[in-house]
């Protein structure tokens, strides 16, 4: 699903001016940087952090939606939701592979997630309380992810850009599917409409927070833009998202929960009310409603699966040994 304005990265770098300007020239010519190419340490570190956060978000993001697979209201919805959550797992897999090209293993990244050292998108620390939340997540959260990720298809780092091309196709399918769930509710009974509006009320602001802090407060945005890891600022992306989403809400008769929202005919943009950055900081630093539960669940899956992973390695080693034995005997 989803990548967020990057949380806390140190893009400082110590290479010579000449090295940096040669690298910058490649980036400016829109050449793709590949795994074995020379690159500034800060570039590598920024990418590892960003791709890692993105991968973890896909994986942790399986939990809130997974929460409704066993309770989906119809067979069609159950199948679509299971397939959607499976897609997110697939995105995690591509992204871990992309990060591995930068020399960091999946095990290492998983350890960092489970120890709380690595971040993931704050949005997944909110609970899915009703079926409508599944619609709202697809519509808003996958919708926000698309805004972030479409420019990432042109990211200067080749493996990340290529992973994003595959991922974006699926995200836009998820977004339509989520919107379609919301539309069915908005056209349903009074209690369904109420469920849909309540979900929009709860997910709207956290979705806007997915784009990260305002441009002035985003410490490392400029360097990421210069290296063409990022193509648009947090506020530009947030604005694009609002502009695309508000008419969709209006079309199905739902109200965006922002009394200060207004369309500026001169700029062609929506002006939105104040985002609660205190809440954002609380959730990012571990104090959202579901932070502890998410990490607990990931840890439990990891710990419960340890014997399985050990057995697979042990079996593979025995197989490899038994394959080499007859060869040695023949020599």
């Amino acid at each position, binding site marked *: 699903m989803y990548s967020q304005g990057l949380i806390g990265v140190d893009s400082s770098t110590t290479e010579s001016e000449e090295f940096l300007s040669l690298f910058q020239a490649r980036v400016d010519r829109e050449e793709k940087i590949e795994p074995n190419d020379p690159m500034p340490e800060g570039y590598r570190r920024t990418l590892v952090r960003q791709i890692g956060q993105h991968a973890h978000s896909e*994986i942790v993001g*399986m939990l809130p939606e997974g929460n409704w697979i066993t309770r989906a209201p119809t067979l069609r919805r159950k199948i679509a939701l299971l397939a959607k959550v499976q897609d997110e797992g697939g995105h995690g897999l591509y992204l871990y592979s992309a990060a591995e090209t930068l020399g960091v293993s999946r095990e290492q990244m998983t350890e960092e997630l489970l120890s709380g050292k690595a971040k993931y998108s704050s949005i997944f620390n909110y609970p899915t309380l009703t079926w409508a939340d599944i619609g709202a997540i697809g519509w808003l959260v996958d919708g926000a992810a698309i805004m972030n990720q479409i420019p990432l298809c042109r990211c200067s780092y080749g493996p990340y850009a290529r992973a994003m091309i595959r991922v974006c196709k699926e995200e836009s399918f998820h977004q339509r599917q989520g919107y379609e769930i919301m539309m069915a509710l908005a056209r349903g*009974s009074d209690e369904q409409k109420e469920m849909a509006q309540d979900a929009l009320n709860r997910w709207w602001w956290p979705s806007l927070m997915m784009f990260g802090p305002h441009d002035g407060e985003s410490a490392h945005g400029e360097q990421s833009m210069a290296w063409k890891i990022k193509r648009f600022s947090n506020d530009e992306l947030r604005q694009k998202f609002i502009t695309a989403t508000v008419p969709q809400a209006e079309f199905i008769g739902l109200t965006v929960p922002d009394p200060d929202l207004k369309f500026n005919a001169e700029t062609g943009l929506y002006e939105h009310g104040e985002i609660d950055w205190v809440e954002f900081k609380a959730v990012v630093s571990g104090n959202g409603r579901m932070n502890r539960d998410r990490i607990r669940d990931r840890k439990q899956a990891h710990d419960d699966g340890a014997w399985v992973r*050990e057995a697979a390695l042990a079996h593979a080693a025995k197989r490899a040994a038994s394959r080499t034995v007859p060869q040695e005997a023949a020599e």
Partner: protein
Amino acid sequence: MGAVAATFEMAGFRALLELADDALILGHRLSEWCGHAPTLEEDLALANMGLDLLGQARALYAHAGEIEGKGRGEDDLAFLRRERDYVNCLLVERPNGDFAATMARQLYFAAFMHPFWRAIAASSNDATLAGIAAKAEKEMAYHLRHCGEWVIRLGDGTAESARRMQAAVDELHRYTGELFEASPVREKAVADGLLPDPGTVRAEWERTIAMVFSQAGLTAPEVRVPQSGGREGLHGEDMGHLLAEMQFMQRAYPGLTW
């Protein structure tokens, strides 16, 4: 007499429900793993198998509803029956347990359904069912291969995995006899040419299991008291909880469109 005649008239419907309920309940169980599997790759594989089974269930319920002819659709049949009206075998409703138990359950089931779907595809006089079977046979071939490999890996891997794998087999083997049972209604459906006698694939099932177990270093336990009753709606206690969860939306918000 009347009741028996009515039951016999509905033999085709009932036989389809057995197939559909097996697929739904096992697909639901596999979906419970989503996000919690031992590896990311396995999370995707378990979801794949769950999706295959839920897709089969959908097609089977839709067809069963047409045969019944009372206007019940796939969701009415999947979500709006009482506990005693579900006719899945007991094996598929067994809780997931650890990964070894899930793999053993899936192996036992796939080793049966793979040849059974093949036989249905080859012999059913119901073209819709034969079509569902042809697709399902291919899907179950993957389940059989995937789970067979895991059972071998775990049986052979470490002392702990071998112990867990043997424990799973010891617990679940007693539920496998029910796969081959032919209830009176199923016998009628067999006589009508809807599907073959499940007993005809028993020898192949036994060969498959013996082959996997020999590579896995597992011993098939002797089953003194086989467990069955699912086909008559006599389930274990876990089944009610599964249904309470699965049916929640349809029960809490009756008659709505989603």
